[in-house]
């Protein structure tokens, strides 16, 4: 690799570099300022904002970085920068900034304020892993970034560790996670054996050879999917989700449910598109190379995932656990967008993710604020909350309505675009299944509203007061849900401009 090539590559990697430097600064500051740890949170915030700045700067940029090997495939790199990746990176960074604000007001995290430096260092490790997952186009780099994300999140899931269920969440997450990433690695090794490379672009051109053993190749793909499916918590790799989401500190739960999932989906989409699409026809449909039937796999898994998520959510009495199942169901909906295998489906997924970020983080934020005061996430403790703390209850109600997908909230727009994409691709049966699922989900979301507004509490509960910054944070998440629910053109335009995945 020549120096000019290196400097070109580093230029494309500015967000990741900034984040790594911020990580090191965090570790140093944690050592220097061990009396007043307040400063650490601000350092983290500044690091994230700088990273966000570089991500936004990159929106118009595209290119390959860190190309490996000899002259014959110099064009492709380990990293691909394109608008699709920048969109997902922005989602991750926005979610991270919100999570830092979450952490500032979370009682769980305040109790461990001595270790706040470690907390943010690990969160930065997660973010770095996600950024690389989003733009990696080399199987080894993909595996490594997944591991970086996993290692930090295993620890964070059990971070507060004073409560038993935290350590428990951590252990379950770690055991199942290391198994799934081990399977993924074995799959990668098989692909390496069949094609002789780990670069996705090279694999794309090599799997078109006639004598590829389809059985071994499909086996390898299923193993690789196990690793990615674990990250996006799709069935049948979802079983860790409820336990971990319930047991982890709520800031981490919210972060996992949005950012980690976004990174996993970005990885899945990029993997499928770069590796398997032979060409895109004039109406925007992706024509796959006939070596592995991704369409059937994704359709089956998405139906399975959303049905399972929705039906299990029906019986949950713990709000965190219910939101965990609901996030599994949402992963199923989002997968529908991929099952369409078209540019339209991809646009719908991007829109859905932007909306999902707001409403899911919002729901978790309100649950956290309530848990800070009443120290419980049980649905029975929410009785009469609509009258004792009208603001929080109303915001939670709106977030949940948006998660259901009812107008005039942004959640409706997200679902609408997904369904339209399905119908346009003549997958009406699938759209009906998704619609029925939405109806089921209405039941458990409304159940919370019923508890808040219609059930009389056994004992009178005092009003839950929220501080000014927290009120503002709730409003910051709440207002866009209405804005995008009515005036959604800018969001749709942004998504339409961000479907370029380089290489095709």
């Amino acid at each position: 690799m020549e120096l000019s090539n290196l400097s070109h590559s580093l230029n494309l990697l500015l967000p990741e570099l900034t984040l790594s430097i911020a990580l090191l600064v965090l570790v140093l500051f944690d050592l220097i300022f061990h009396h007043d740890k307040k400063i650490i949170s601000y350092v983290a915030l500044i690091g994230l904002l700088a990273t966000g700045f570089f991500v936004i700067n990159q929106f118009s940029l595209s290119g390959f970085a860190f190309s490996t090997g000899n002259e014959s495939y110099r064009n492709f790199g380990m990293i691909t920068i394109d608008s699709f990746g920048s969109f997902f990176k922005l989602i991750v960074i926005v979610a991270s900034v919100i999570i830092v604000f979450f952490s500032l007001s979370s009682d769980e995290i305040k109790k461990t304020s001595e270790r706040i430096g470690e907390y943010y260092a690990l969160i930065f490790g997660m973010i770095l892993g996600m950024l690389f997952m989003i733009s990696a186009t080399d199987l080894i780099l993909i595996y490594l970034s997944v591991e970086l994300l996993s290692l930090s999140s295993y620890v964070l899931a059990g971070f507060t560790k004073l409560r038993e269920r935290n350590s428990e969440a951590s252990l379950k997450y770690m055991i199942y996670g290391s198994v799934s990433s081990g399977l993924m690695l074995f799959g990668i090794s098989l692909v390496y054996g069949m094609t002789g490379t780990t670069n996705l672009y090279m694999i794309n051109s090599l799997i078109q050879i006639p004598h590829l053993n389809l059985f071994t190749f499909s086996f390898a793909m299923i193993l690789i999917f196990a690793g990615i499916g674990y990250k996006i918590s799709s069935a049948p790799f979802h079983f860790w989700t409820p336990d971990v989401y319930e047991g982890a500190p709520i800031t981490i739960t919210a972060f996992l449910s949005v950012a980690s999932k976004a990174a996993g989906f970005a990885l899945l989409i990029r993997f499928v598109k770069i590796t398997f699409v032979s060409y895109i026809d004039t109406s925007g449909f992706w024509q796959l190379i006939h070596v592995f039937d991704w369409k059937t796999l994704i359709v089956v898994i998405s139906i399975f995932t959303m049905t399972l998520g929705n039906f299990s959510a029906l019986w949950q009495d713990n709000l965190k656990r219910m939101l965990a199942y609901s996030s599994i169901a949402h992963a199923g909906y989002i997968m529908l967008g991929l099952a369409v295998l078209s540019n339209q489906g991809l646009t719908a997924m991007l829109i859905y993710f932007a909306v999902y970020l707001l409403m899911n983080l919002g729901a978790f934020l309100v649950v956290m604020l309530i848990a800070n005061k009443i120290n419980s996430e049980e649905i029975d403790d929410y009785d009469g909350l609509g009258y004792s703390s009208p603001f929080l209850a109303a915001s939670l109600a709106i977030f949940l309505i948006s998660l259901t997908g009812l107008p005039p909230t942004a959640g409706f727009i997200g679902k609408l675009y997904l369904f339209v994409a399905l119908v346009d691709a003549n997958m009406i049966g699938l759209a009906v299944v998704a619609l029925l699922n939405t109806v089921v989900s209405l039941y458990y979301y409304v159940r919370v509203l019923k508890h808040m507004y219609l059930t009389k509490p056994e004992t009178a509960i005092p009003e839950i007061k929220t501080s000014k910054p927290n009120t503002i944070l709730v409003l910051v998440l709440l207002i866009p849900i209405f804005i995008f629910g009515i005036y959604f053109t800018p969001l749709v335009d942004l998504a339409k401009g961000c479907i370029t995945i380089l290489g095709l």
Partner: protein
Amino acid sequence: MSLYDIIFYLFAAITILSGFIVVTSKNIVYSAFSLLFTFFGVAGIYVLLGADFIAIVQILVYVGGILILLLFGVMLTNKITNVDIRTGTIHVLPGAVAVGVLMGLLLSAMVWTEWKTQPSETPVTTTVTLGRLLITDYILIFELLGILLLIALIGAASIARREQE
């Protein structure tokens, strides 16, 4: 049958037999010690494949690091004087059948798949080339691994440290 073949079968037998003991032994301490031989056997296989540097790293890191960690884990979490170490196996028969089927499929895949093969010359020593690759083509992964190790260090220290309270 050449000497190469004999050595291969020797190492393969060590690897597989000890691996079998690892997964079937009722006593977790036996499992951990048996894993030592598995790692050694794999290191021997690396040597046969011309990967001398990897073989050394395998012994240093796996045997010297990971295995010691696992043993610490075993010793610290089980009173080894107590005979009844709870590693009771569940669903042995269905598990064995399922894994047997999986192994059959995998073996047939391994044998029948047309892998990418070419006659090759392995260099006498790999260290120089590996080092060069590490700071050229794979520099990004190398640097990322550095960060990953830092994160692992912070994470492990953070979670294993005793709470002051």
